[in-house]
């Protein structure tokens, strides 16, 4: 336990260093699920010396249930509303961002392929807005949050069934610096 606490501290320090924009310590690849992360620029994983590393953000890397480790919020069909789990994830990131005002995020809204592209673009926007409202409501500065919708243009799962569609109806929380 003590070991993992220490790890958290180190992690937080490392992230904050990166976040303060002095220098990027690690590539910005989430260890958590999902994330086509078009805005994220890491390809991550293998360094030049061949050592495999996984990068992580504010969450506890040893705790898979830490909502901060989840960087993707999922949605019901044709709905911009957060469900209970989405609310928890959004609030966790909001809390962290509120106490780390030097860190910015991009909220990237997406939709599944069903329906029209323009409606889905609007739907992705409203999904990103739903997360943004939680964050702003918890004191994160609006200037630190940016939203973008890709509609149905950037699916992470390519199947034409509910298991793929459910992965594509999402907002990705992408940390910047």
């Amino acid at each position: 336990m003590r070991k993992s606490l220490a790890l958290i501290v180190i992690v937080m320090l490392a992230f904050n260093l990166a976040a303060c924009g002095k220098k990027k310590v690690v590539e910005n690849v989430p260890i958590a699920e999902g994330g086509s992360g078009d805005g994220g620029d890491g390809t991550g994983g293998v360094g030049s010396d061949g050592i495999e590393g996984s990068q992580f953000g504010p969450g506890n890397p040893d705790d898979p249930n830490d909502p901060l480790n989840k960087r993707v919020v999922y949605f019901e069909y044709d709905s911009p509303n957060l469900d209970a789990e989405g609310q928890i994830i959004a609030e966790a990131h909001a809390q962290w961002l509120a106490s780390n005002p030097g860190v910015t995020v991009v909220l990237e809204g997406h939709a599944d392929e069903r329906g029209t592209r323009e409606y889905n673009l609007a739907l992705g926007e409203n999904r990103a807005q739903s997360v943004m409202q939680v964050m702003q409501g918890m004191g994160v500065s609006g200037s630190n949050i940016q939203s973008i919708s890709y509609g149905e243009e950037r699916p992470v799962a390519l199947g034409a069934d509910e298991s793929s569609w459910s992965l594509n109806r999402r907002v990705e929380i992408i940390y910047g610096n």
Partner: protein
Amino acid sequence: MQDIILTFKLSTFYLAPMVNFRIQIKNLLRLTFIPVLFCLSISPSVVWAQEQPLDIIITEGVEGAIPIAVVPFESSTAGDPPQIISDIIEADLARSGRFETVPREDFLGQPTTFNQVRFKDWRLLKVDAVVVGKVSAAGGGQYDVQFELVDVFEGRQMTGWRYRVDGGKMRKVAHQIADIIYKQLTGIDGAFDTRIAYVTVQKTASGGGSYLLQVADSDGYGPSTALTSSQPILSPAWSPNGSRLAYVSFEGRKPKIFVQNVADGRRVKLADYPGINSAPAWSPDGSRIAMTLSRDGNPEIYVADSSGGNLRRLTKHGAIDTEPAWSPDGQTIVFTSGRSGKAQIYRMNANGGGVSRITFDGKYNARASFSPDGNQLVMITERGRGYQVGLLDMRTNATKVLSDTRLDESPSFAPNGAMIIYGTQSGGRGVLAAVSSDGRASQILKFQEGAVREPAWSPFNRKL
């Protein structure tokens, strides 16, 4: 960030002045001898044997179609031109669903002028009409093209035309001839000599995508690329005179609206507000563009001058409002709204206000647009069988599902209202499909490379 390459290839094909190459002598059309006339035109740089980017698969034919024979045109010179002309005419007529083209191997003769047509041969084949013609080189890369449409039962020439054209205009002339035949036999203006704009997505070697805004003839041939981007392109919309395209481009990683000249590729950024900038729709007089912006926190419909000035908000509701489309008289805008909890079609006055719901059947109705006569709305509808093209007749309030595909998008009327082109999926790939507005004829246009989507049918851009 260099997302974007603007290309200007369109100019060679489409800059051509709108030569009025039919000096019409309407009364003469019914006489036996070929009326007249021709002239035209420029544009030497286009090679006229275009690559063939697609297969057209006719998935459904029509009962009661007019049987017609298109006899291969005679050529006084070696090479492909005449064959291409008669092939294109035949393909256009077949694609429309209103004609049944008789196989050439059944022909009992190969007439090339009205005088050579032996009517009894064609009556045997139960053909109503025969198209004959010929092509000859006129020097300087030009050709004389002539055709006649023959009424087999009355034994008379219904119409005939002669043109002098550049080799690069053979496809265009063929489409115009098909338009004349279509009009003559159906009473409806043909829309073969029109264009479609659409988006092609190609996978790049690095695994990313390349998005191309393309413009091709209405049958998918002769594609030119108006814009290439590493980021998505959506919603091309033709200006009412066919000279410009408005579209949504994610270059700079954000959806913005641009307006681009089709001829020379020059463009202006119409809308780049915070949030999404999308769904551009031209007013029928071309002076204004309705669009969807989320600059005030939620996707709402706005209208601006076609230069982007005088922005005004038209809708105000916490749900999504998007996909505006103008009625042909410019008085009404229909749009998609999620205000009932699900996407449905609504209408409002073109200056905002007077909102009322139009669609009540189906769980999902979106992306409506008006038929050219203003009596119908084509849209995407979900009625338990997937997302399909639906046609709502506003006089009877009845909706008919026209497509039997399942993930349809972006339906767009031909300017004569007879056909609707739309995007759908076939074999996991984006393809364009077309269906007649009576639902009786349909086809899939399969492009050989990449996924194709977001079709928009041009207006009648060159009045004949």
